[in-house]
């Protein structure tokens, strides 16, 4: 860049010097003339100076014409550039496409990163919003789950929050709107909830302190989410005054939140809530707060830690926990950072390769134009002028590429959003805003510098004499130029290998994930979520009977090989909180240090339906009723952890210090519920018939078409109880959902890697094709002197493969160095997995070989006589 600036500066100095001489000549002549008329010299000089309007002013006025001329020259350059690009439309189209694709992909991915990670949450003063969480001091882990009494203490003792609120809930509930049974996701919130976010209602009103029920009373009003209200009632205003019975509790909708307000993510309704429980060991709330304007995060954090420490001393249940603040944005999207920045780097690498490719093509073109440039230099175009001309061309190319990229990006964004996991936070906020446009401009400008500067500087260093002397159509640029082009190819190959290796690791890891033995079958299992709302003990008895009947009738349907119910569905949904368990005859241990397990209530045949092996003991039976001995089944992980080296059968276990002991009657195989990449958690199963009773999700294994079975099941259910809502999914869909994130990142990075490899191959091809063109004469002489076609092919292929080999080695070194960054995203694959690296190198090697063969074959078919005659 300095070279160019210097060229401009020197030109300006020369012009200044000339102007001074010109004006001095004028003044001197005028002074002489006036002195001849009888004036003395100082007076003559004064008058002459005055006459032309003052030296300094004239100098300034003249200089002004130069700066306009500079603009004129740019306009001229632009015209030349556009004319040249239009004339070589094939070249322009090729380069433009590569550029537009790579810039477009960058813009698209950046707009996702921008919306998800960079933009502040769309609440007023969103930086002051924090998630107030439990910090477990023994593990150092923060958890969003907080206990009600802790929250009340935090609220009462702090003076750093403007407002702080708690939220409860998370599950979908059965609800009735009119006589229509639906699922709804209600959240129970304290009065300040909307105040924390600074939200206003889009219809009706939000919640106030007066809405909060007193004592154990149930709420009577609710505020609806805008999307839910419009889906349910047509428009927001229509929802006001409507009644909805959530799990039998009638609520009147008094307001609708602003469009787009959804916190926590899945919420449909918010109802007022008062914390009445006193158990500090029960963490069933979440808390959010708005920090006061004049308080910074670290001060708020310090005060909350002090409060947490006080509570730890006062309450034994709090011995191992305190409180911590996590910025809300980090809480919502923090876990996506690694994935999104990884994808951003990948697409950045693709763009770098594209730029290297284009720089290469421009160098080749500049070489083809050596004579033209030399001629223009000889005719007096300054070096700066020539460089500027080439740079203008690059700028026009980058500008056009950037604009086209922007258009393509809006397409790509749609593709990315479609590929992305449905629950990717803030994905609906992706749009082309000012930040994205600025990014697009930046990328285009940097592209210009990356691929435009090298050929421009090169051309300005051109040796005039050599270029003209060489004559002929095949004037070459310096050997420095071909060295540079080789260097660019090496860089392209190296970058591609790195990207291919990274993609390879992710693909293999994803394959491993898909092959994971889940411990149960997802094949041909239909899942029906249902919920049966109960208000009293009579309802609970009815519910058990309804589900038992339903399952019996379902098992009788031809084509259904097994059917069962489960209180919580294993996969994909929000993880079930693990809970402490106790074993009869052993010390209870301290709160916070007790072993934990998941608890699932199921019916008989659950294991049969999902093909989970019973390793010891028995399955639940219809005889396991409330009057009989309470029983439980545990999985192998729990058996190993709790009863190492002994049989768990006949031992007693419970998850609550006040409930009766349950006899362990069976041990079953492990299953991976939530995330296939995690080891199976310890699980306790209890029969839903002995449990307090639960609504069940129905699982049915069938040889029938799953949708037709869904119809049958819906009819059976409606017969049994018309107030039970039902929603269907297949086990495969649930499994897909669990793999959504790994699939997304694997697909996207795989796509980028493929493009990178293609670009690298094109790069090798273009350099070799150019070299063959350059060496036509030399090759012809070789042929004439007896070299065989095979010799020539070997020569060219050898040259191509040497470049490739250097690139491969460098890329391999880079890939190994960077692999550690991927470690957290890999499953059962080492970041240094040899097979992956071999594969990446082999793939690119083959591509490179193909790219070198074409020019080599062309070289071999050069007919010596014709080639020599042409010269």
């Amino acid at each position, binding site marked *: 860049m300095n070279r160019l600036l210097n060229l401009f500066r020197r030109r300006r100095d020369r012009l200044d010097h000339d102007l001074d001489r*010109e004006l001095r*000549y004028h003044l001197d*002549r005028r002074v002489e003339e006036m002195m001849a008329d009888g004036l003395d010299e100082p007076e003559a000089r004064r008058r002459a100076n005055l006459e032309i309007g003052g030296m300094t002013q004239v100098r300034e006025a003249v200089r002004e014409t130069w700066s*306009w001329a500079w603009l004129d020259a740019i306009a001229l350059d632009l015209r030349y550039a556009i004319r040249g690009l239009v004339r070589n439309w094939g070249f322009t189209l090729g380069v433009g496409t590569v550029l537009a694709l790579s810039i477009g992909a960058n813009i698209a991915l950046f707009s996702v990163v921008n919306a998800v990670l960079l933009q502040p949450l769309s609440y007023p003063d969103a930086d002051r919003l924090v998630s107030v969480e439990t910090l477990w001091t023994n593990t150092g882990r923060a958890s969003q789950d907080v206990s009600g009494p802790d929250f009340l203490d935090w609220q009462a003792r702090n003076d750093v929050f403007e407002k702080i609120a708690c939220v409860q809930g998370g599950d979908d509930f059965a609800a009735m709107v009119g006589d229509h049974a639906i699922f709804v996701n209600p959240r129970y919130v304290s009065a300040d909830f909307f105040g924390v976010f600074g939200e206003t209602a889009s219809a009706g009103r939000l919640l106030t302190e007066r809405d909060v029920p007193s004592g154990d009373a149930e709420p009577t009003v609710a505020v609806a989410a805008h999307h839910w209200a419009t889906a349910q009632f047509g428009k927001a205003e229509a929802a006001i005054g409507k009644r909805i019975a959530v799990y039998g509790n009638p609520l009147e909708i008094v307001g609708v939140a602003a469009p787009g307000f959804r916190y926590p993510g899945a919420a449909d309704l918010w109802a007022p809530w008062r914390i009445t429980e006193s158990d500090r060991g029960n963490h069933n709330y979440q808390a959010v707060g708005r920090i006061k304007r004049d308080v910074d995060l670290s001060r708020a954090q310090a005060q909350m830690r002090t409060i947490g420490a006080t509570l730890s001393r006062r309450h034994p249940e709090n011995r191992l926990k305190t409180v911590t603040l996590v910025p809300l944005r980090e809480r919502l999207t923090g876990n996506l950072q690694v994935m999104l920045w990884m994808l951003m780097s990948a697409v950045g690498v693709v763009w770098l390769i594209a730029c290297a490719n284009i720089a290469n093509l421009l160098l080749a073109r500049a070489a083809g134009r050596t004579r033209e440039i030399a001629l223009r230099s000889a005719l007096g175009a300054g070096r700066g002028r020539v460089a500027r001309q080439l740079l203008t061309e690059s700028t026009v190319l980058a500008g056009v590429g950037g604009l086209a990229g922007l258009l393509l990006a809006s397409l790509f964004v749609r593709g990315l959003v479609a590929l992305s996991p449905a629950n990717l936070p803030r994905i609906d906020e992706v749009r082309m805003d000012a930040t994205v446009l600025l990014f697009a401009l930046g990328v285009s400008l940097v592209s210009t510098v990356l691929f435009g500067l090298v050929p421009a500087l090169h051309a300005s260093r051109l040796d005039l004499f050599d270029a003209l002397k060489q004559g002929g159509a095949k004037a070459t640029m310096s050997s420095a130029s071909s060295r540079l082009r080789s260097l660019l190819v090496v860089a392209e190959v190296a970058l591609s290998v790195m990207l291919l290796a990274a993609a390879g690791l992710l693909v293999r890891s994803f394959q491993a994930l898909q092959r994971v033995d889940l411990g149960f079958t997802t094949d041909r299992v239909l899942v029906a979520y249902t919920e049966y709302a109960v208000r009293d003990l009579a309802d609970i008895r009815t519910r058990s009977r309804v589900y038992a009947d339903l399952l019996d009738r379902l098992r009788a349907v031809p084509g259904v090989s097994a059917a069962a119910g489960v209180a919580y569905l294993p996969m994909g949904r929000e993880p079930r909180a693990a809970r402490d368990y106790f074993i009869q005859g052993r010390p209870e241990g301290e709160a916070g240090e007790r072993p934990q397990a998941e608890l699932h209530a199921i019916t008989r045949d659950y294991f049969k339906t999902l093909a989970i092996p019973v390793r010891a003991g028995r399955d639940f039976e219809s005889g396991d009723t409330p009057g009989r001995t309470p029983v439980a089944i545990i999985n192998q992980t729990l058996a190993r952890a709790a009863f190492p080296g002994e049989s768990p059968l006949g031992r007693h276990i419970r998850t609550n210090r006040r409930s009766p002991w349950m006899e362990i009657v069976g041990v079953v195989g492990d299953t991976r519920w939530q995330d296939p990449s995690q080891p199976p958690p310890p699980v306790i199963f209890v029969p839903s018939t002995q449990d307090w009773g639960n609504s069940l999700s129905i699982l049915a294994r069938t040889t029938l078409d799953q949708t037709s079975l869904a119809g049958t099941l819906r009819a059976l259910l409606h017969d049994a109880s018309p107030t039970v809502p039902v929603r269907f999914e297949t086990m495969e869909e649930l499994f897909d959902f669990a793999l959504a994130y790994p699939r997304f990142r694997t697909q996207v990075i795989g796509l980028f890697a493929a493009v990178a490899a293609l670009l690298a191959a094109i790069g090798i091809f273009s350099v070799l094709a150019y070299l063959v063109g350059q060496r036509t004469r030399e090759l012809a002489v070789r042929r004439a002197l007896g070299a065989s076609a095979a010799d020539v092919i070997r020569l060219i292929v050898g040259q191509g493969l040497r470049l490739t080999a250097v690139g491969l080695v460098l890329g391999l070194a880079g890939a190994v160095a960077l692999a550690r960054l991927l470690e957290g995203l890999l499953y059962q694959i080492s970041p240094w997995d040899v097979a992956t690296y071999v594969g990446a190198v082999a793939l690119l090697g083959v591509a490179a070989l193909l790219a070198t063969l074409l020019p080599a074959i062309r070289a071999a078919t050069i007919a010596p006589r014709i080639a020599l005659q042409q010269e």
Partner: protein
Amino acid sequence: MPSPRFPIPQGTLDMLVLQILSLEPAHGYAIAQRLRQVSRDAVQVNQGSLYPALHRLEQKGWLTSEWRESETGREAKFYALTKTGQKQLAVEKADWNRLATAVQLIFGEA
């Protein structure tokens, strides 16, 4: 000496310079002398705008310049009309005549 003169209309200076140079190449001082003559006779030319005008015309490609020995033996920057400069002068003259005729026509009819 001062006779009733009016200031030169905007943009006319360029035309005058082109006209002067259409006779023969000249350096800035000679052009200024010629302009002073014109000034005495008809219109008032601001000498301060001469050099900016010369450089502007050169940038537009209507003039070329070169350093050459002048009548005093000292080197001076001589300006000459280019092909496009000649064309431009013809265009401006034609425009000027059209305007003058039009104005006369209006005054004649009034």
